[in-house]
């Protein structure tokens, strides 16, 4: 009975205050979209880092069939060549710059590739043979990349030596900057949302002061009096959060999944499924924003 009563109160509150409720929905929608966009950018950075990025700095790719580099004139890398590269890495001259290194076989390379590009159609057209085996080196000092490069580029069986960080770091700093901007905008919008929710609740409490006055007099509990107001704000904010989640999913699905991945097939993009991780976070954030701001407002404007 009391539940039905509270639901009825919420319904009438939302109806009476419709324009304010719509504006709360829109403001939380926009602010949470920015929060989610920042989250998506970070997820995208992680996706692009792949398996090795955080573990190693330098990759020595070994010759495979069809390699055209100068060092690969004698065909794919042989077991002896690989062994001598391994011992060179372990020799004191090189080992002083190296924390540790790992060998990635063609099979392992294929598995890591599959993980990173799981959302991309390219994964179906690649076979383990096409991917080079490699030594992955974790440097004591990443700045010393040049030494490794000079030592190994000319070795037989080495296709190329790559400093992975150099390739991606500039892109990542742009993306990190963009997520910072998104977070700042989200912050301002969240302040707007909180103030707007507070104002809405105040108006709502004022327009229903007759009812709440009577409720107080006949001994309704604080919960019964305040809950409809709080839930009004929470419902509006949750609707906003749901819209934000839907927008982010649509961006991942249509823009990244269907447009960008066609344009840049060699880049790993996050899937629309991955953005669903953000949904509960956005819903909880929206609900708690509204809940807290309406609770604080009611404490001032609705005496019980």
């Amino acid at each position, binding site marked *: 009975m009391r539940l039905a009563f509270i639901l009825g109160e919420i319904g009438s509150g939302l109806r009476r205050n419709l324009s304010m409720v719509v504006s709360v929905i829109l403001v939380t929608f926009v602010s949470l979209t920015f929060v989610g966009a920042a989250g998506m950018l970070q997820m995208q950075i992680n996706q692009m880092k792949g398996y090795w990025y955080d573990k190693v700095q330098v990759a020595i790719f070994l010759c495979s069939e069809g390699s055209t580099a100068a060092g690969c004139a004698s065909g794919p890398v042989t077991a002896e060549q690989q062994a001598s590269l391994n011992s060179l890495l372990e020799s004191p001259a090189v080992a002083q710059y190296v924390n540790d290194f790992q060998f990635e076989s063609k099979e392992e390379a294929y598995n890591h590739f599959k993980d990173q590009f799981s959302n991309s159609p390219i994964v179906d057209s690649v076979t383990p043979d096409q991917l080079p085996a490699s030594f992955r080196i974790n440097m004591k000092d990443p700045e010393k990349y040049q030494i490794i490069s000079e030592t190994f580029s000319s070795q037989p069986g080495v296709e190329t030596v790559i400093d992975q960080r150099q390739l991606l770091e500039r892109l990542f700093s742009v993306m990190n900057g963009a997520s910072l901007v998104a977070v700042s905008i989200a912050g301002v919008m969240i302040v707007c949302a909180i103030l707007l929710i507070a104002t809405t609740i105040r108006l709502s409490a004022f327009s229903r002061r*007759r009812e709440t006055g009577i409720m107080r007099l006949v001994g309704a509990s604080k919960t019964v009096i305040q809950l409809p107001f709080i839930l009004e704000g929470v419902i509006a904010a949750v609707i906003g959060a749901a819209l934000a989640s839907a927008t982010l999913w649509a961006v991942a699905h249509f823009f990244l999944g269907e447009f960008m991945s066609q344009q840049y097939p060699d880049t790993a993009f996050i899937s629309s499924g991955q953005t669903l991780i953000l949904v509960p976070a956005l819903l909880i954030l929206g609900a708690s924003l509204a809940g807290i701001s309406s609770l604080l407002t009611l404490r001032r404007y609705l005496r019980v």
Partner: protein
Amino acid sequence: MIRFENVTKVYDQKARPALDSVNLEIDRGEFAFLVGASGSGKSTFLRLVLKEDRATSGAVYVAGQNVAKISSWRVPRLRRGIGVVFQDFRLLPQKNVFANVAFAMQVIGKSRSVIRDTVPEVLKTVGLEGKEHRMPHELSGGEQQRVAIARAVVNRPGILLADEPTGNLDPTTSMGIMGILDKINQNGTTVVMATHDDDIVNEMRKRVVELKNGVVIRDEARALYTSMIPVVGQSRRLKDASGRDATETGLPGEGEGQR
């Protein structure tokens, strides 16, 4: 049922107190009029009973409980034991008669079936049977006040406070309202009614507590709106009552003696 022990209420430190060392006891099942000019402290008295305000000093007991000691989350329970009626009815304009009365039961969580049984019964007590589905604006002032009374007593409170319930009504209608209040009182509810309406007070011949400037200057059983005590005595008391010092010694004791 209601006991004031030396209660003082000060709203503004610079002004005189709204209530000044009031000692008063209203017993269970009693019917008492609270009379006095505007600003004499009648409304403050009612607010203190409801714990809408705290007494500045002294203690207010309602149904044996010191209201100052009731924690804020238990105040609703106190208020469920008290019905209140106002001069301006305070009905919800968008709800019909039945819904207005039912509202008081809904918000404290009564079940639908209990509401369905109780509300028509209470509406019958106040003489509104058959008007369940009217909207407040379709009713006369007297009928609206009956709805308000029905709402105040539907949860069977032990106390009914009425703040000038007949202030907006003509004399005949007022007498009808008084009949209802009297009936409610005879069913065992303590009724305290603040009023300016001398005709009603004179007609009912109930206990009269007169306040002036926050001080009880008269407390008589089966009394009239104006004092029956000779004018000489009254003028002396009124003079005393206006000064704060004189009141403490003289008046409350006098009221006590007449009860």
